[in-house]
């Protein structure tokens, strides 16, 4: 197989499926690119996350809240959570679609994955902002 053949998955599509416009519903590429780009954002942010975790190991609520209260930390922490959830909701969806074949269970899991990720993002970012605003307001 030559190198070029690797980049031509179109040969697996039947002419009929192409005519019907089915298959990946024409958004498979954007899903893939979202995965790659959010992954690129997540890599440096997760390195920062490990340093942050090491800094906060064993810290009490007061110390940890003061740390989150620093604008740089609040912003980076929110970005870490958001990029992680975008990346993981996309990648876990692919894992579900690969291994769960029953239509109802697959759909339920894909929707559940999305709901949990959006909920975690909303709760997480709201909490970070609440802590950041409260701590800065107290000074």
């Amino acid at each position, binding site marked *: 197989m030559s190198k070029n053949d690797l980049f031509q998955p179109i040969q697996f599509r039947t002419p009929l499926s192409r005519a019907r416009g*089915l298959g990946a519903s024409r958004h498979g590429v954007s899903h893939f690119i979202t995965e790659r780009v959010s992954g690129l954002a997540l890599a440096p942010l997760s390195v920062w996350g490990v340093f942050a975790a090491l800094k906060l*190991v064993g810290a009490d609520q007061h110390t940890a809240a003061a740390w989150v209260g620093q604008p740089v930390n609040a912003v980076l922490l929110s970005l870490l959570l958001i990029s992680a959830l975008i990346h993981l909701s996309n*990648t*876990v969806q692919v894992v579900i679609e690969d291994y769960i074949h029953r239509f109802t269970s697959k759909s339920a899991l894909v929707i559940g994955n999305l709901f949990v990720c959006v909920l975690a993002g909303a*709760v997480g970012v709201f909490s970070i902002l609440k802590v950041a605003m409260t701590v800065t307001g107290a000074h």
Partner: protein
Amino acid sequence: MTDTSRGLPERPMSPHLQVWRWHITMACSILHRGCIVGLWVGAVILAAWAAALAAGPDVYAGFLGVLGSPIGKLVLLGETFAVFFNIAYTIRQTFWDTGKGFAPRIADMTGAMAIAFAVVATIVTWVIAGANGAF
């Protein structure tokens, strides 16, 4: 999301896990999928940590108690490995996206390096965490 292939001829599928010989690139691929699912749980834990922090000192102390329990520590150890393996794997995949690193010898080597990096970085992180009073 929807099953659009119904009624169309069966498409070729990749060989099932059981008929593959174990080798480093497939082990890395499976390990990475496992890590991704683990990190999904980790992201939810991170959001819960932020919520506990916002809820006040008592809730936060209780949350740290759960994370500091033997099972909590085991989960965090797994998360640490998953974070580092995912970082290495992202770099590896980015090279793949440019069309580089597919030669079997190179792919084996980068896979082994990703696992080695994750193991070493996890040990170093936990040694530092221990020195910072994690135990």
